[in-house]
């Protein structure tokens, strides 16, 4: 590959001499630029100097303000020259210099002259330059010419005007929107690219008008589209229309699907691919709809062009996450891609195969991957490791070969992220596959014997302390752990001490030996290590008497801190800020646990939370909500926040004021947080509040509200309304809302608001508090264990007919959403074409009641769906409530 370059090495010296920019220096070039001022312009010389200036800029050299201004002014002199090539360089230079507003005026007249020139090249380029550097006021002056240019018969000129329009729409939408008629005309242009640019601009002008977009798509899909690029664009707009219109419920047909399918037979590859990609991402796409798209992608897989292979395998990889069965037809082509020269393609092929593979192919696949792993980069390896973990969870019986594979790659060279991915995977496998525990733990033990990453060592030691004592022969781990105390840095030593203590607490027979080891740690030279050893010796009764470890101690050692650390941090900060005599009470820390530690969601595509993974997204928003609410004195007495819902939009998109509501559920109260955004630059809203009519929510009574003092343009603000409700009861109801405020006009040029305001109100949509609002999604790592340990005492089983449904998947997701619970073990994914499905859910109901639900669905030929619902919880009322929710939903 590098062959031709090596040959060149011999004459590298000669080559360097010929570089026209050798030894180029900014100061000298700026001096040279004086030729621009010569009365007799040498066009060729000037072009060269401009090229040099552009070269400098391109190499990352910057001009000071003064230098730039000087160059700019002298460049403008070059408009005198009639040399076309020079003019072209002048245009380029002006664009690169991006002159300031007062400088722009200097060139405006020259550029406007060029815009009306008879030379097409001048017109096209002058438009592009002028639009690049212009501002609103100047734009109104040249608007007339731009409108003309859009319908110019020279396609280059028209395209230049249209593309400039697309850019200007960002800064001066109101002006560009006035060009609709011309743009509309350009869409019908016979020139392929003009149509493409016109279509892009027209769509952007109309993008907020759904009806107009839909009309545009309808007319064009029937008409002629000339360039592949425009066709791709139309496919994108079509999928947008499809997404917004939904499936025709009577016939089950999707509007415009035929058009997309037709594009699969287009002659341009980019169009075929764009259409195939659009089909694969249709929401709720059926197997019948997918098949033609998969077929063309499969053809791409064996293309000689790497770009096509990559595009196809990347798309199929995404499809495999949701419709693994649909992709299995491509498996043979995919397997040949494992040896593809292009490593990105090979990695995508492997991970796709891992997703679609069946139990029997696992071993063969693993062999191929082993050969492949050694020569790819870490980033690819991590992708493969993730895929292997999912595979292992899918086929637990295959854990032996997969675990072996993981332990092999763990021994090889690799960076932190890669090693962490492997360790995380092993940990998850140990938790979910009981048979894999012993071998997995030993692999981890061997790894920490020679592990350069402190973080991983401590995490593994912690994990070992929890899992090791429960194995058949715990004593064999002691050696590995104590080795850490001897060999490692202080952080790891301290962890090892804790782990030893856990073994001591759990296994009485090991106690005497553990005490000996812990006593040795009392002489460690690190404070933390000594402190821990002392603490554990005392709590475990290390003074010699071998007693049964009491429950409190075990609780202390093993009890996980069931408080999200971010909540803990917030509470501690509050405590420090408001000093008091009372000691800090850990029970006062809110416990809303939204993170799901060490739960591997088998749903493909979701990032697993591995060992010590940071809490996922929801916690941080919950944390923000918590901070906001606790900062409002009126609400502090409500106690601890149980759940915050996702925002519910109360306005249509693109209206004057955008408002959504977040429902915060407390034990005896509900607080509605209205997030308001003012989208009108000319207005300032003051004293904003929401009047809530709760006549359709009988169990609620309003207890307070907090208005928003001022809501300036584009700065979101919140106003709150609080309601009281019966304690612990999942009261439901409907609320109507009216936004009230005082409007003040704002002078947009100065940003100052007028003194006098007008009272006004704005109708918002209604929303409801539903039973699902009282349910927090909390996953369980092993549903079957959780189910059995819950016991059948408060089990309630019943059957329901759900009537005709669009599909099984749709019925399943409806029920999941209705209950607002966390699907476990990936059971929310319904394989396409299946006639029955079971789904496992878990959650935490208000009053901190754990709830587990088993759903069994069946669908018959007439799409009638029947469902069996089994609930287990800690309280029979809660179990009944779940049935009520379903019965009434």
């Amino acid at each position, binding site marked *: *590959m*590098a062959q*031709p*370059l090596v040959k*060149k090495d011999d004459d590298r010296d000669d*080559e360097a001499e*010929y570089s*026209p*920019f050798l030894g180029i220096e900014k100061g000298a070039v700026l001096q040279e630029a004086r030729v621009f001022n010569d009365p007799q312009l040498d066009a*060729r010389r000037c*072009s060269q100097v*401009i*090229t040099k200036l*552009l*070269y400098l800029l*391109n*190499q*990352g050299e910057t001009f000071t303000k003064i230098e730039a201004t000087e160059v700019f002014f002298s460049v403008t002199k070059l408009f005198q020259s009639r040399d*076309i*090539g020079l*003019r*072209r360089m002048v245009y*380029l230079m002006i664009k690169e210099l991006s002159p300031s507003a007062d400088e722009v005026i200097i060139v405006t007249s020259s550029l406007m002259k060029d815009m009306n020139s008879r*030379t097409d*090249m001048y017109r096209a380029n002058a438009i*592009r330059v002028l639009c*690049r550097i212009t501002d609103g006021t100047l734009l109104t002056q040249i608007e007339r010419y731009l409108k003309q240019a859009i319908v110019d018969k020279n396609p*280059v000129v028209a*395209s230049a005007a249209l*593309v400039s329009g*697309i*850019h200007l729409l960002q800064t001066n939408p109101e002006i560009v929107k006035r060009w609709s008629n011309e743009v509309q005309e350009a869409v019908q242009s016979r020139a392929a*690219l003009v149509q493409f*640019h016109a279509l*892009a601009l027209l*769509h*952007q002008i109309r*993008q907020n008008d759904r009806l107009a977009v839909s009309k545009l798509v309808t007319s064009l899909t029937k008409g002629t589209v000339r360039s*592949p*690029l425009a066709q*791709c*664009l139309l496919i*994108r*707009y079509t999928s*947008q229309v499809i997404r917004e219109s939904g499936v025709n419920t009577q016939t089950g047909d999707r509007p415009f699907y035929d058009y997309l399918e037709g594009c699969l037979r287009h002659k341009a*590859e*980019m169009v075929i*691919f*764009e259409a195939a990609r659009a089909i694969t991402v249709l929401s709720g796409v059926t197997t019948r709809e997918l098949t033609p798209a998969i077929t063309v992608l499969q053809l791409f897989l064996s293309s*000689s*062009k*790497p*770009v096509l292979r*990559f*595009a196809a395998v*990347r798309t199929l990889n995404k499809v495999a996450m949701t419709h693994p069965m649909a992709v299995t037809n491509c498996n043979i082509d995919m397997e040949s891609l494992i040896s593809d*020269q*292009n*490593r*990105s393609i090979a990695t995508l092929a492997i991970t796709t195969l891992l997703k679609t593979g069946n139990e029997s192919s696992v071993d063969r696949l693993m062999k191929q991957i082993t050969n492949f792993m050694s020569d790819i980069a870490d980033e690819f390896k991590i992708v493969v490791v993730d895929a292997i973990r999912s595979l292992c969870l899918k086929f637990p019986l295959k854990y032996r070969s997969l675990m072996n594979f993981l332990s092999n790659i763990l021994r090889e060279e690799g960076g932190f992220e890669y090693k962490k991915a492997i360790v995380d995977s092993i940990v998850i496998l140990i938790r979910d596959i009981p048979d894999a525990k012993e071998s997995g733990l030993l692999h981890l033990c061997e790894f920490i014997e020679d592990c350069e990453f402190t973080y991983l060592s401590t995490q593994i030691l912690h994990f070992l302390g929890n899992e090791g004592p429960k194995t058949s022969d715990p004593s064999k781990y002691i050696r590995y752990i104590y080795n850490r105390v001897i060999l490692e840095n202080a952080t790891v030593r301290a962890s090892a001490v804790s782990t030893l203590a856990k073994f001591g607490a759990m296994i009485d027979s090991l106690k005497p030996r553990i005490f000996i080891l812990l006593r040795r740690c009392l002489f460690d030279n690190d404070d933390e290590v000594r402190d821990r050893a002392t603490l554990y010796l005392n709590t475990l009764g290390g003074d010699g008497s071998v007693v049964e470890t009491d429950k409190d101690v075990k609780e202390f050692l093993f009890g996980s801190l069931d408080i999200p650390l971010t909540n803990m941090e917030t509470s501690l900060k509050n405590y420090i800020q408001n000093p008091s005599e009372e000691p800090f009470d850990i029970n006062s820390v809110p416990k809303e646990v939204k993170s799901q530690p060490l739960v591997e969601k088998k749903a493909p595509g979701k990032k697993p939370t591995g060992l010590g993974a940071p809490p996922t997204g929801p916690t941080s928003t919950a944390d923000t909500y918590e901070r906001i609410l606790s900062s409002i004195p009126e609400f502090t007495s409500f106690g601890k926040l149980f759940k915050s819902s996702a925002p519910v939009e109360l306005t249509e998109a693109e209206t004057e004021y955008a408002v959504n509501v977040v429902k915060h559920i407390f034990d005896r109260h509900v607080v509605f947080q209205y997030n308001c955004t003012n989208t009108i630059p000319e207005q300032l809203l003051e004293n904003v509040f929401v009047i809530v009519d709760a006549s359709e929510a009988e169990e609620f009574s309003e207890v307070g509200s907090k208005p928003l003092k001022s809501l300036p343009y584009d700065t979101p603000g919140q106003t709150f309304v609080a309601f009281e409700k019966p304690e612990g009861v999942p009261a439901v109801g409907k609320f109507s809302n009216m936004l009230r405020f005082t409007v003040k006009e704002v002078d947009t040029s100065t940003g100052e608001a007028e003194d006098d305001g007008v009272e006004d109100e704005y109708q918002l949509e209604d929303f409801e508090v539903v039973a699902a609002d009282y349910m927090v999604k909390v996953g369980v790592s092993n549903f079957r264990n959780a189910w059995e340990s819950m016991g059948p005492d408060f089990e309630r089983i019943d059957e329901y007919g759900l009537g005709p449904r669009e599909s099984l998947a749709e019925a399943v997701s409806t029920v999941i959403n209705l209950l607002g619970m966390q699907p476990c073990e990936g059971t929310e994914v319904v394989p396409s074409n299946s006639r029955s499905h079971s789904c496992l859910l878990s959650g935490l109901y208000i009053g901190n009641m754990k709830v587990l639900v088993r759903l069994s669905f069946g669908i018959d030929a007439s799409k009638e769906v029947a469902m069996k619902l089994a609930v287990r919880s800690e309280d029979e009322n809660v179990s009944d409530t779940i049935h009520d929710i379903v019965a009434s939903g």
Partner: protein
Amino acid sequence: METCPSVKNILLLDSEGKRIAVKYYSDDWPTNNAKEAFEKAVFNKTQKTNARTEAEITMLENNILVYKFVQDLYFYVTGGEDENEIILAAVLQGFFDAVGILLRGNVDKREALENLDLILLCIDEIVDGGIILETDANSIATKVASNSVDAGAPLSEQTISQALATAREHLARSLLK
């Protein structure tokens, strides 16, 4: 997805990963340092691959990167991760072939630097502010070439006059040493 196909940058590097001509259309790389770091990452990731017969492709920092090499010139086009790979490849091919036409088949670093004006104009004719203007190599080259010399002169004469001009410059430079 509803957006117009767009290009984040076009890069032309040499066999050591140094810039010959680059143009960025996205704010993903706000400073020159960020740009240089990106170019370095691009070069390191791709230099060992064989992208001489067909354009190659990879992902880098959540971007799609298509590239093609000839002699000591390395051509790259970058797009967002949701971009249609084949559209990006079409832009790359247009750029690659147009440069080939403009340099009259002598596609190497020296020739590229000596005709840097043409290369810069070429990039300017392919993409405007991220939006694709033209992907057909002949149209691109025609637009650039018709600017570089007197529009009236026929193509064959251009070749000679250009050759003469270059020869003159070489002569002048060697005399000055």
